Each structure stands twice: as structure tokens, then as C-alpha cells.
């Protein structure tokens, strides 16, 4: 069995698991929907944090904009539910991408810790602005349009939207990471001065990377708002201490800078967290904090990073002479 077959089998397995999971476990549809949201969070965080080496704590901002734009559009227009959701998601995506395009050149000029601290401040500031802005309901939040149907159907509906978004993000990133864009942001991560010295348009690539993250985070905001049924500025939209930190941890746990790492990290993290809620009620935050410490101390490279150290050949790191390479081509 060659690599391509194994890879294909994994894709089919994950895709079919995603499709049938809510049918098999209808009581867990909301948790499963959030699982795909976590996958999406980790994947989009890793574009900057893992592939480009820019630790952003501000990505939650793009998601929050998505929640609010969709909810406001649904509140203020007379469109039908499905049309209003589609229009809201589209507009959310445009607003989030535009925010990344405008803020990107300003804050992506900073490097290392300065960038991380700046994005942290940005997230907090925006949460406070929305929590004090009457037009969007201020501290009491905003209620998006209700799903026209049963609660169970609503859960299914939003589950499949979030599943589709996570899959779309994965496929898009898989293509992008193999393109010139992918290598350019990797080069920026490994040595930005060198990348500049080689004439790479570093600013252009950095802003583009954030815009890709914004695209998916903006789209995800609306469906999540609809699933929860209520947009709170600090607990959902701009939830820096929870979602904002989790997206970082999940990517680190799975393995920063790899395609599958964030997916694996999100799944492990989400299941562990649900487990804590079930068996350590009252202590779940303590357990979560402990888990975070354990991840950082024992898995700084993440699951995929650890595998790569142990089994570099699985990742194509081999010494290959000319004769051997030709033999390989013949075999293939």
C-alpha cells in the first residue's frame, strides 16, 4: 500500500465520519458542530501562527466581526431566514477580509513578541467597543434570526454548515501550502530578513495570509451565532480567554506548521474538554489549565512535530542519490 492510498483512505474516513456523526449521535450534534468550529479555529490560526511564525491572539476579532455582521443584517432586514443567513455570511466574510487587509499592513510590520502583544490588545479593545456600542446591543448582546423549524433540525443545519466550512478550509489550505504562497510564508517564518534580502514581497504575503484566515473566520461567525442563538460580546464573539487561547493551544498540541496538526489538536482538545465538563464539573477550568501546562511542557512541538522528529522518513526527509531517485521513478 503506497502513501497516496493511505492518504486517500484517511480523507474518505474523516469525511464520512463527519457526514454521519450527527446521525449516529443526534444528542451530541451541538458539541460535534463546535468540534468543526474548533478545527476551523486551529487551522486558520496555524496559517499565521504555525506556517508564518506570527503568533496572533487577534484572530478572534475576525470571528467576532462575523458573528455581529450576520446578526445585525438578520435583525435589520426583512429577508427570509436562508437568504438573510447567506447574505449575512457573505457580508461578514467581506468585512472580515477587509479588516485584515486594512489592519494587516499596520500590525504585521511588527515582529515576534510585539506582534503578539499588539494583537492581544486589539482583541481586548474591540471586545470592549462592541460591549459598549448600543447599535449592536452593547453588553446585553444581540439575538440573530431564529431558525424556522425544530431545534434538532436547527442543530443539524448548522452542524453541516460548520462541517462544510472546516472541510473547505482544510482543502483550501492544502492547495495553498503547496503553492508559492505556502513556501513564501514558511520562508518568512524561518528567516524574514533573509526572505527580504531575496526580494520576496513579504508584506504582501503576510497580509494575504491573514486575509485567508479572515475569509473562513468571517464565514464561520454567522452560523455559530445562529447555533448559539445569542451573540454576547465577550463570551462568544470576542471570547479571547476561551476561543482566542484555545485556537493557539489546539494548533500547538497537534503540531504547529503542519496541515494535519491543527485538525488532530482540535479533536483531542475538544474531546478532552468535553470529558472534563462531564467528569470534573466545577473543576473543569482547573483541569483545562493543567492540560494547557502539560501541552506546553511536554508537547512543545505537538503531536505531528513529535512524529516528524521520530520518523523523519514519513515526512519525505531522505537522502536520495541520483541512481536511487531514478529507480524510484521507474517503480512509480
Amino acid at each position, binding site marked *: 500500500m503506497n502513501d497516496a492510498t493511505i492518504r486517500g483512505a484517511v480523507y474518505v474516513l474523516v469525511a464520512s465520519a463527519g457526514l454521519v456523526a450527527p446521525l449516529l449521535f443526534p444528542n451530541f450534534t451541538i458539541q460535534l458542530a463546535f468540534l468543526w468550529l474548533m478545527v476551523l479555529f486551529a487551522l486558520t490560526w496555524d496559517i499565521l501562527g504555525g506556517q508564518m511564525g506570527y503568533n496572533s491572539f487577534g484572530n478572534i476579532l475576525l470571528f467576532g466581526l462575523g458573528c455581529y455582521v450576520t446578526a445585525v443584517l438578520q435583525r435589520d432586514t426583512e429577508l427570509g431566514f436562508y437568504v438573510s443567513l447567506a447574505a449575512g455570511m457573505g457580508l461578514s466574510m467581506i468585512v472580515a477580509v477587509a479588516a485584515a487587509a486594512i489592519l494587516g499592513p499596520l500590525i504585521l510590520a511588527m515582529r515576534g513578541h510585539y506582534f503578539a502583544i499588539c494583537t492581544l490588545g486589539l482583541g481586548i479593545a474591540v471586545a470592549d467597543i462592541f460591549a459598549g456600542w448600543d447599535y449592536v446591543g452593547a453588553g446585553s448582546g444581540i439575538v440573530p434570526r431564529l431558525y424556522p423549524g425544530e431545534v434538532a433540525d436547527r442543530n443539524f443545519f448548522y452542524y453541516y454548515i460548520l462541517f462544510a466550512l472546516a472541510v473547505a478550509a482544510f482543502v483550501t489550505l492544502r492547495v*495553498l501550502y*503547496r*503553492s*508559492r*504562497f505556502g*513556501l*513564501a510564508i*514558511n*520562508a518568512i*517564518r*524561518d*528567516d524574514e*530578513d*533573509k*526572505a*527580504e*534580502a*531575496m*526580494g*520576496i*514581497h*513579504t508584506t*504582501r*504575503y503576510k497580509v*494575504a495570509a491573514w486575509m485567508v484566515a479572515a475569509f473562513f473566520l468571517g464565514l464561520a461567525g454567522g452560523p455559530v451565532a445562529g447555533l448559539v442563538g445569542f451573540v454576547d460580546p465577550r463570551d462568544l464573539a470576542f471570547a479571547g480567554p476561551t476561543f482566542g487561547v484555545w485556537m493557539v493551544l489546539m494548533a500547538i498540541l497537534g503540531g504547529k*506548521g503542519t496541515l494535519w496538526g491543527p485538525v488532530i489538536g482540535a479533536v483531542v482538545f475538544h474531546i478532552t474538554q468535553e470529558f472534563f465538563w462531564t467528569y470534573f464539573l466545577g473543576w473543569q477550568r482547573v483541569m483545562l489549565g493543567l492540560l494547557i501546562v502539560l501541552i506546553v511542557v511536554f508537547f512543545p512541538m505537538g503531536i505531528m512535530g513529535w512524529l516528524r522528529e521520530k520518523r523523519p522518513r514519513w515526512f*519525505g*526527509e*531522505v*537522502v*536520495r*542519490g*541520483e541512481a536511487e531517485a531514478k529507480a524510484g521513478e521507474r517503480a512509480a
Partner: protein
Amino acid sequence: MSALLEVHNVSKAFGGVVANRDISLRVSRGRIVGLIGPNGSGKTTLFSSIVGYHPVDSGSITFEGREITSLRVPEIARLGLVRTFQQTRIYGKMNCIQNMQISVPQARATVGEMFSRFPPEVTDKAEALLDFVGLYSKRFLRAGDLSFGQQKLLEFAMALMNQPQMLLLDEPTAGINPTLINGLIERLQRANADLGITLLVIEHNMRVIMNLAEHIYCLAHGELLADGAPAELQKDQRVIDAYLGAH
């Protein structure tokens, strides 16, 4: 012959330390020119000024007759004036092929190209150049796992991949074993002769620079001390004094 690179009365100070004072030099197209001087004489500072890493205090720098004094690093690189680093810089977590691919000339990159895969010609060229520096069998290894000398060769190959008109090499042979040095000199000469790349080389290894360069500039204490053909410079009492510390 017209000068490809012309540095005119450039000065640069860091606080109270004058690293470069009124330095002028010319490099004609197609030549190999050396830049020598004791440690701390301002050679690397001059390189950094030329490629736009920091602004100069006074003076002007032109490349192909075009004023580049106030341009930034990536812009100058895209004009075809590229440097390598004294402390080797490669992309450590990417493999050698990827290091080479992303080093293609960036001047004409369109939006479509930004988001598409590299065409097979690029990969072929990357492999050919890796072969040229003797790293072909290591092409799937991470660049950060190579030895220092190999990284130096990779960095040189990356610079060639960029198809520059002119290369500024900061101590290309430092830290490389003597056998490999001979190979590197030969490759530098071939890059100059076959690919037509003009070279400006900082070097401490006198045997190397005297064999390689056609013309040498010598700096000491941030000032231009002497310049001339290698044979002249070797006999120049000021240069000998500077190196032996009599200055």
C-alpha cells in the same frame, strides 16, 4: 567600461562609532572584486548600506546608473543586487528544494503566480543548481539539518537561483574546510564566467581572495585604505601595517 555598482562618498555612523567614512568604490559589470580589511574595519556595514539594510548618513549608491541609496532591501534585491550573509541564513525548516524554489526572482511575480504551484522548470532548475553545489542527494532534507559548510553552499545556490546581476558575498569560505574551499572558488568563478554574475566578495582568507579577485579594495578603521590589483596590494606597506596592527 561603465560601473555596475558605484558607491560614492558613503558614510555611516552608529552612535559615536564611525563604521564607514567617505567610502567610494566602483565595480564594473562582469568583474570579480574583493573587499578586505581587519575585523571591525566596516566591510559588512558597507554591504548592509549597499543593499539598503540601513540608511546611510551621507553619500550615494547607484546600481546600473540608478540611484538606490534610499530604496529598501527587497526592492534592491528585485533589481538584481543580492547579498549573502556572514552568519549563513537559510530557511531551516524547509527542505533544500523548497529553499531553492522560493528563491526564484520575485520581480515579476503576478497575483496568479503567488497562489499557484511552481512550474516543473523551476524544480528542474533548483535540482540542477543543487547538483552544481553538490547537494543533490540531500535535496529532501531540511536545510537546518545540513552541516554549516553545506548550508553555506545552499545559500550560494539560492543566490544563483535568484538570477542576480550582482552578488555581494560576505565571507563565503568562512567555516568551510580547505577541500571544500577549492570547490567553492571554482564555482564562484564559474558563476561569474558562465552566468555573467558580477561578484563583490568580502574575504579574510588571503589565498582565496588573491586568487579570485581581479581588483581589491582594502578598508581599515572605516576608511578606504588602498585599492589595486592583488599583486600591488600584497606589497602595499599600508595594507601590511593595517593587518599587523601598526596602523
